[in-house]
């Protein structure tokens, strides 16, 4: 399994990682000298950069190695600071990692403080992506905390001249057998002579607390810093204030692909407090207020000449993808293909075969907080506070854009207003830094909602071609699945099929693409689980029986059965009410297993689909925080209704047709159905992440319920209600 997870980890970043830094600025001589000088300083003081040593790059094992000192600091007051490169974007990583540390240190949750995603202070734990915090970073933090606890035990044993194993640690203190002698973490911090192991490399063989003994993990610890959220005192990236700080705005092209031919900064010269800069294709202003910065950019925009280029429109999207498919001439982007058995043989032996094509639109993440950054220069050193899921990636982008060494760039990620895979890149950080360098003062830059819609990246669109063959008894014999452009996550079918061909085919996407919650698993699972329903109908079986009869994987069977039982799927499938229908879908991705049953109402005359009820069963190994898990499942379900039913990016002539909040339909309170969540707590299995995978079962279950209600199979995501009017 680890091998497979590793492959999946790389998948979400496929699009971002190869994208060049959006700007590369000229370095002037004065700055060059400053940079070299500072760089030497940093080199001399290299030991302070704890984070760079001992951490393997490029794999999920990042953060597993290193010294205790890089991960943990114990104050003389007993306060324990744990350091991690992960970020908090609403998924609950701060709380979960705090729990993990408290569990292994045997201290109350309140005694642990977490420093997250400050490149100068914390280890590089990789991107906050791919649901890796739970399976990778939680164990890394736990190992360090066990090691720290062992240091405490060893110190106590030494001081009391007893064996380690008669000492127990509870409530932050080592206690001897009779409870007569105590040694706390604070005592330890005050006695440096007791802690030779602290600077040494972490031992590899520490034993984590088994699930049955968990006291803090496995409980619903409330969101750390929740009080700051309700009082409005938590500083998100867009809330960071620095002395003398200005506000920025950036000139944007009128359409995709437009090149700036000429522009006149003259109109800003008489504007009070405004600094304007043009550097290659970059033009922006800083001013005392964001209003003034925007006014300055608007004045410049009137003088700008752009050279536009043709750009495809969303109405022709799927033929564009198909026509630009890379079928093997380029080695780097050759189709990825996996086969089992012989597809031709399987299809030839089939009693029945079925073909279909499916489409999946681009959608946007629409995090509540758009991209934001505050940049500040001191000498040749740059500090940027920004909302990103890849702090070290953004640090590298900044270093590249300004031709600095990474040691001279510090990226700090305050807990951020939503990510959903949409904040892996550093555009806003680079722009804020360029404005700040020009102004000689810190600059805060926050993208407008329209900028976020147009210039952030999108979840990839996809086009799919499928063919499958069924045996006389309704068993799956052959399976041919081709995904154009949308990505490889959950590409493989979890069902038992002897003859398969599964392909992912690269295309030239008209829009900029990147990660999204669940990435391509949502598209692949929508297509697969919709087509499974088509096959069930062809086989003359009900959707649940058909799936179970073609499925060996016991974990997926368990969630399908749990959801179906709770929802009374079999009984409700037989009930017939006008316009009402039920559907089921399952799936697995990133080590989690999910199944959903939904109940929909349809109105064919009006072309509407309403989800009344959804019941989801979910299994992600041993549950670490039940309430947060439930919140992630509920959030995924409702967010999934958007991509499932209403969200799609439309564009024409290089412009978005619906790039405003009023035009782009995301789920609101009125869309919330009755939700039932069944979690299967497999305490015998390792915990895996759950922030993404619940979303993959939502759309196909809806499409299947719409078919049950109307007999109409809608082969597109979003599942557009208008399709019912035409059918």
């Amino acid at each position, binding site marked *: 399994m680890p091998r497979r997870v590793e492959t999946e980890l790389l998948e979400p970043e496929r699009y971002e990682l190869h994208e060049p830094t959006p700007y590369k600025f000229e370095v002037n001589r004065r700055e060059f000298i400053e940079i070299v000088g500072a760089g030497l300083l940093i080199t001399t003081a290299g030991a302070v950069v704890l984070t760079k040593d001992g951490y393997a790059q490029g794999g999920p094992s990042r953060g597993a190695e290193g010294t205790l000192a890089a991960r943990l600091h114990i104050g003389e007051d007993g306060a324990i600071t744990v350091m991690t490169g992960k970020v*908090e*974007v*609403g*998924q*609950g990583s701060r709380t979960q990692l705090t729990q993990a540390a408290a569990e292994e240190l045997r201290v109350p949750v309140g005694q642990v403080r977490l420093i997250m995603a400050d490149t100068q202070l914390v280890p590089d734990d990789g991107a906050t992506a791919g649901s890796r915090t739970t399976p990778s970073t939680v164990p890394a933090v736990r190992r360090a905390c066990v090691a720290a606890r062992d240091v405490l035990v060893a110190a106590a044993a030494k001081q009391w001249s007893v064996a380690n194993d008669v000492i127990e640690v509870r409530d932050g203190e080592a206690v001897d057998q009779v409870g007569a002698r105590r040694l706390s973490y604070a005592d330890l911090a005050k006695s440096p002579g007791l802690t030779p192991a602290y600077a040494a490399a972490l031992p590899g063989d520490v034993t984590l607390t088994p699930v049955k003994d968990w006291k803090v993990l496995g409980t619903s610890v*409330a*969101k750390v810093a*929740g*009080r700051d*959220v*309700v*009082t*409005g*005192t*938590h*500083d*998100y990236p*867009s*809330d960071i*204030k620095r002395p003398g700080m200005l*506000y920025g705005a950036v000139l944007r092209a009128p359409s995709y692909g437009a090149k700036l031919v000429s522009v006149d900064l003259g109109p800003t010269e008489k504007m009070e407090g405004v600094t304007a800069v043009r550097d290659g294709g970059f033009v922006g202003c800083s001013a005392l*207020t*964001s*209003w*003034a910065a925007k006014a300055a950019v608007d004045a410049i925009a009137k003088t700008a000449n752009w050279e536009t280029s043709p750009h495809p429109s969303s109405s022709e999207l799927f033929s564009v993808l198909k026509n630009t498919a890379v079928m093997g001439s380029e080695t780097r982007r050759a189709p990825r293909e996996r086969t089992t058995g012989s597809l031709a043989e399987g299809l030839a032996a089939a009693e029945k075969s079925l073909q279909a094509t499916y489409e999946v639109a681009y959608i946007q*993440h*629409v*995090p*509540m*907080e*758009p991209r934001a950054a505050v940049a500040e220069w001191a000498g040749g050193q740059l500090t940027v506070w920004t909302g990103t899921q890849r702090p070290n990636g953004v640090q590298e982008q900044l270093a590249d854009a300004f031709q600095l060494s990474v040691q001279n760039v510090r990226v700090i990620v305050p*807990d*951020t*207003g*939503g*990510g*959903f895979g949409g904040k892996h890149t550093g555009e806003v950080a680079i722009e804020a830094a360029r404005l700040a360098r020009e102004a000689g003062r810190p600059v805060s830059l*926050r993208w*407008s*909602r*329209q900028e976020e819609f147009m210039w952030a990246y999108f979840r990839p669109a996809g086009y799919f071609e499928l063919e499958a063959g069924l045996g006389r008894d309704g068993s799956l014999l052959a399976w041919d699945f081709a995904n154009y452009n949308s990505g490889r996550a959950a590409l493989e079918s979890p069902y038992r099929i002897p003859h398969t061909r599964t392909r992912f085919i690269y295309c030239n996407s008209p829009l900029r693409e990147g990660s999204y919650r669940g990435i391509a698993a949502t598209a692949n699972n929508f297509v697969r689980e919709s087509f499974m329903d088509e096959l069930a109908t062809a086989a003359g079986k009900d959707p649940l029986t058909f799936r179970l009869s073609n499925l060996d994987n016991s974990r997926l069977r368990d969630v399908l059965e749990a959801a179906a039982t709770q929802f009374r799927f079999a009984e409700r499938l037989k009930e017939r009410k006008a316009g009402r229908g039920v559907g089921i879908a399952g799936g697995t991705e990133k080590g989690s297993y999910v199944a959903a049953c939904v109940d929909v109402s349809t109105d064919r005359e009006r072309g509407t689909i309403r989800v009344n009820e959804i019941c989801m069963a979910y299994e992600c190994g041993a549950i670490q925080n039940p*309430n947060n898990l439930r*919140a*992630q499942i*509920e*959030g*995924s*379900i*409702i*967010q999934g209704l958007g991509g499932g039913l209403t969200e799609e990016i439309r564009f024409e002539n290089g412009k978005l047709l619906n790039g*405003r*909040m*009023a035009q782009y339909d*995301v*789920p*609101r*309170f*009125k869309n*919330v159905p009755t*939700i039932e969540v069944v979690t299967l707590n497999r305490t015998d299995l390792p915990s895996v992440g759950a922030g993404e995978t619940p979303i993959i079962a939502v759309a196909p279950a809806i499409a299947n319920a719409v078919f049950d209600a109307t007999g109409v199979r809608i082969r597109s995501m979003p599942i557009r209600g208008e399709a019912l009017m035409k059918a």
Partner: protein
Amino acid sequence: MAVVIRLTVNDEQHEVRTDPYRPLLDVLREDLQLTGTKYGCGEGQCRACTVLLDGKPVTSCRTPATNAAGKTIVTVEGLAANGDLHPVQEAFLEKQAMQCGYCVPGMILTTVGLLEQNPHPSDEQIVEWMNGNLCRCCAYPNILLAVRQAAAKSNPTEIAEAHDAKTR
């Protein structure tokens, strides 16, 4: 071009020199450093920027600063008194009605505005009233629980009195 306006924000008087069309949101965040009020869309479509203007929830991103002149404004920073949370804040915290939390200040003030004019809203009235507020983490179920809990604490006068009594 610039005008001087007087604002009463969270019981404090302020005199602000500003362009008259500048959004109240910018004045609160940039001039008064009250960053608890959030920008979400600039279109009045997500209501992350909700504040109370003379007791009524408004989208501060679409409210020109001059429209607030001489009026009383309450932001999320003005709800808790002497460290004691407002009952609506308490309800949001108790029900864990937040994921990233960015929409929460707007949600809380919209709820305070609801209970001000309708102390005993039905579930349908709550959904109708709150529907303008977006949460992209889709923490709606817990937010609804929080609003219901706050509403269950009966009428706003009682809430206000209980709050005052606690903070005294």
